[in-house]
C-alpha cells in the first residue's frame, strides 16, 4: 500500500496534474455557485476535452470539478438562499439565516472549513479502507434504504419547535405529495400529471428548491417591503465580511465536524443514497447530539446546523468514489458520467483496480488532498469580497436572484414549462411563508419521499408482498429501532423533564 501511495503521490504531484486539480477546483467552484448548473452537466461537456489526456489526469480533473462544485455550492446557499447544487440545500437551512444576521463572512468561513475538513477526513478513510469499504456499499438492501429514509424524516423535528409542529407536518405531507407527481418509479403509470407531458418525468428537485427557497425568498422580501430588512441594513459592511470565528463558534464547529464526516462518508459509500441524503441526515442527527439551548437555534443560524451538512456533503462526495472505483457502480448521475469516461479510457473499475492501475486509483485519492487545500486557499481570501454581495441594494440583488433562478432552471432541462412551473410553485410558497409555514420540511419530505416509496415497494416486491422485511434483517431492524428511539426520546423528554 505504501508503494501505491508513493506512486499516487508521484502522479498527483506532477505539474500537469496539479494544474488539472486547480482547473477542476476553479471551474467546479464557479459551476457550484451558479444555481441550476450542476457538476454532472459540466463533467459531461468536459469529457471530449479529457480524451486527449492520460486516464489519471482526466479523472483527477473530473473529480476536481465534482468536489469543487459541492464546495462552491454552499456560497449561493448561504448568501442568496439558492443552493448551487442539491448537496448544499441543507446548508441553506442555517447558513442563510446566519447571513441575514450580518454574519455572512463567518457563515462562509464555517462552510469552507467544514467542507475542507469533511473532504480531507474522508480522503483519509478512502486511502486506508477503500478496497474493504466496498462491502458496506453492498450491505444495504432496499429494506435498509427504506429504514434509512424513515430515519432521515425525523430531521423534520428540527423545524417543528415552538408550536410549529402542525405546520411542519403539513409541509411534510405537501412535500410527500409533490414527490408522487410524474411517472411512478416502478410501473409505467403516470400520476397527477393532468395529461401534461411536461410533468411525466416528475418535478425536479432543483426546481422545487429554487422555487421554495431562492425565488419565494426574493418575492417575500418584495412583499414585506422595507421593514424586515431594516435589521440587516443597519449592520456595517465591515462586519459582513469578517471571517474571524470566536472561540465558542470554533469549538462548536470542531465538535460537529468529526461525527458528520464519518456519517457523511458512510452514506456517500452507499450507491442508493449520496451527498444530498447525507447532508440531510447529518443535519437531523446533529440536532440529536446538542443540548436544548442549541436545539432551539437550529434553523435560525446555528453553527452546528451549518457545519454538519457542509462536512457531510463533502465527505459523501469522496465516499461515492468507493462504489465507483472498486465496484464500477455509479451512485449518482455525476458518477455515472465519470464511469462512462473511465470505460472510455479503457479502465476497468473493480476491487483489483488499485493493483492493475495503481497510478489511477491512488493518484485520484492523493489529488483530493491537494484539491481540498486549493479550494480552501481559493475560497477563504475571497470570502470578504463575496460576502459583500449582500451589501448590494435590495432593488439590484432581488432581480439578480430572480434572473439566476430562471436561467438556472432553464439550463437544467431546456424546457420553458419548468420556468412557469417554478414561478407557480414560488408564488404558492411565498403565501405559505407569509403565514409562517417552514419550507425545509417540504424539501426534506420531497427528497426522502420518492426514495422511501420506491424502496418500500421494491422491498414488498422482493418479499412477495409480506411485511416481514421490516424485521428480517438485523440492519433494517436496528435502523428502525434507532428511529423509534429518537422519536420517543424527543416526544417523551419534555414530559419527563417536568
Amino acid at each position, binding site marked *: 500500500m505504501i508503494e501505491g501511495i508513493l506512486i499516487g503521490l508521484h502522479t498527483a504531484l506532477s505539474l500537469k496534474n496539479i494544474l488539472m486539480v486547480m482547473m477542476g477546483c476553479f471551474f467546479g467552484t464557479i459551476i457550484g455557485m451558479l444555481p441550476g448548473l450542476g457538476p*454532472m452537466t459540466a463533467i459531461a461537456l468536459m469529457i*471530449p476535452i479529457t480524451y486527449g489526456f492520460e486516464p489519471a489526469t482526466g479523472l483527477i480533473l473530473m473529480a476536481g470539478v465534482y468536489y469543487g462544485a459541492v464546495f462552491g455550492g454552499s456560497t449561493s446557499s448561504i448568501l442568496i438562499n439558492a443552493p448551487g447544487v442539491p448537496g448544499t440545500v441543507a446548508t441553506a437551512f442555517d447558513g442563510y439565516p446566519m447571513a441575514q444576521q450580518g454574519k455572512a463572512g463567518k457563515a462562509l468561513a464555517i462552510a469552507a472549513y467544514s467542507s475542507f475538513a469533511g473532504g480531507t477526513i474522508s480522503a483519509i478513510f478512502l486511502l486506508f479502507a477503500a478496497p474493504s469499504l466496498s462491502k458496506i456499499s453492498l450491505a444495504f438492501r432496499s429494506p435498509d434504504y427504506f429504514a434509512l429514509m424513515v430515519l432521515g424524516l425525523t430531521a423534520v423535528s428540527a423545524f417543528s419547535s415552538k408550536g410549529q409542529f402542525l405546520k411542519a407536518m403539513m409541509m411534510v405531507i405537501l412535500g410527500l405529495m409533490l414527490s408522487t407527481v410524474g*411517472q411512478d*418509479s416502478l410501473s409505467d403509470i403516470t400520476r397527477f400529471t393532468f395529461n401534461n407531458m411536461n410533468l411525466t418525468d416528475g418535478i425536479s428537485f432543483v426546481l422545487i428548491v429554487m422555487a421554495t427557497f431562492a425565488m419565494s425568498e426574493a418575492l417575500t422580501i418584495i412583499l414585506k417591503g422595507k421593514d424586515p430588512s431594516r435589521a440587516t441594513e443597519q449592520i456595517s459592511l465591515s462586519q459582513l465580511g469578517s471571517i474571524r470565528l470566536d472561540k465558542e463558534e470554533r469549538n462548536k464547529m470542531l465538535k460537529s465536524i468529526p461525527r458528520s464526516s464519518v456519517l457523511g462518508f458512510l452514506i456517500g459509500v452507499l450507491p442508493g443514497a449520496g451527498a444530498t441524503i447525507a447532508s440531510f441526515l447529518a443535519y437531523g442527527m446533529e440536532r440529536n447530539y446538542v443540548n436544548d439551548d442549541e436545539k432551539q437555534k437550529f434553523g435560525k443560524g446555528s453553527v452546528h446546523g451549518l457545519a454538519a451538512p457542509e462536512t457531510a456533503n463533502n465527505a459523501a462526495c469522496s465516499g461515492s468514489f468507493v462504489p465507483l472505483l472498486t465496484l464500477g457502480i455509479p451512485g449518482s448521475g455525476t458518477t455515472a458520467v465519470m464511469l462512462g469516461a473511465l470505460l472510455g479510457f479503457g479502465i476497468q473499475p*473493480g476491487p*483489483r483496480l488499485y493493483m492493475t492501475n495503481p497510478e489511477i486509483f491512488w493518484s485520484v485519492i492523493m489529488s483530493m488532498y491537494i484539491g481540498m487545500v486549493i479550494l480552501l486557499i481559493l475560497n477563504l481570501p475571497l470570502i470578504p469580497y463575496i460576502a459583500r454581495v449582500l451589501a448590494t441594494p435590495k432593488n439590484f440583488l432581488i432581480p439578480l436572484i430572480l434572473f439566476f433562478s430562471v436561467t438556472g432552471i432553464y439550463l437544467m432541462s431546456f*424546457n420553458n414549462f419548468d420556468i412557469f412551473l417554478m414561478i407557480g410553485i414560488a408564488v404558492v410558497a411565498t403565501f405559505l411563508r407569509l403565514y409562517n409555514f417552514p419550507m425545509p420540511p417540504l424539501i426534506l419530505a420531497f427528497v426522502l419521499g420518492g426514495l422511501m416509496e420506491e424502496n418500500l415497494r421494491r422491498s414488498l*416486491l422482493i418479499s*412477495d408482498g409480506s411485511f416481514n422485511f421490516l424485521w428480517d434483517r438485523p440492519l433494517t431492524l436496528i435502523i428502525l429501532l434507532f428511529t423509534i428511539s429518537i422519536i420517543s426520546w424527543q416526544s417523551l423528554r419534555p414530559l419527563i423533564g417536568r
Partner: protein
Amino acid sequence: MINIRKFIGLLFATVLLSSISTTSFAIDKLHFVIGGGAGGGWDGTARGTGEALTKSGMLKSASFENMSGGGGGKALAFMINTKPEGTVLVQSTPLVLRSITRHKGYVKGSGVLSYKDVVPIAGVIGDYGAIAVAKNSPFKNFKDVVAAYKANPSSVKMAGGSVRGSMDHLIGALAFQEAGADPNKVVYVPYDAGGKALAGLLSGETQILSTGLGEVMGARDQVRIIGITAPKRVSDAPDVPTLKEQGFNVQFVNWRGFFGPPNMSSGDKKKIAKMLGDVQKTPEWEVVRKRNAWVNIYNPDKKFVKFLKQQTKEMTALMKKLGVI
C-alpha cells in the same frame, strides 16, 4: 400566379447553385435535436456522431439542441409540428416502446406519436441486452436460471434499471418466454438507474439482472454475464456467450438512430443516411465508437423502417402477454 412561379423557379435555381458550391461536403450543416439533457445516452450519440462527421470532413458544421420533457415526446412533437429544416432527431428503442405503452409524452389527442410520424433515416449504433448474475452465483448459464425458476418461480427475482414494460424488463421477459416460462410470472424488480440495479444484484436482494450490455461492462469484475441478446458474440466482450448459442433464440437490440422531420425530401434522407453509413468507416468514428463502447449496427432507410415495424409487432405481442398494455 406568375409571380409565384417565378419565385419557385428562382428558389430552384438557388438550390441548384448552392448544391454546386458545396461539393466538398456531403451536407453543409446539420442540427441535432436531443430529447434529453446533457450526459444522457441520446446526448452522447448525437454529439459523438456530430463530432465524427465534422472531424472526418463529411459535414461542415454540427449544432446541438437539448429539449427534454415527456421522455423524449416533447422533442418528437417539435419535429412533427415545426418541421425544422436541416434537422435530425436522435431516438432509440423507447420511441417504439413508448408509443406502444401510450406513454403520456407520446399521446396526441386520441392517437399516439410513433416513428411513422417522422422520417426514419438510419439506425447507427446499438446495445444488446444482457442477463447477468453475481460472480459467486450458482447460476453458470441461462439454463440454470430457467431450471431454478421452474422449480420455484419466486426464487428468481430479476432486477432491471427501469420501470415495468421498459427495455430492461422486456429483455429478461423475452428470454424467459423463449425458454418456455410464463414471462408474466417472473418477478421483475425495477430500480431507477442501471447502477442501482447492479448494486441490488450484488447486494444479493435479486438473483439476476436484466439490462443493456453497456450497463454491466463497467462491473465485469463483479458480475458474470450469462447471456446476451446478440446474433453472435461481440468483439468487445468475446468471452460472453449469446443466449442463441445456449439454445434460446432471443434477439434484441436497443438501437439508436436518427429521424428527419415529416417533410424531409427523399433525396435529403438518402444523402444523410449514406453519410451516416460512410462515416462509420472513418478512423474519426472509430475513436468515438471505441471510447463509448458502441456497437456499429448500421441500418439505413427502408431496412430501418422494416426493422421498426418488426420491433413494434414483436414488442406489442410481448407487452400484451406481460399485461403492461
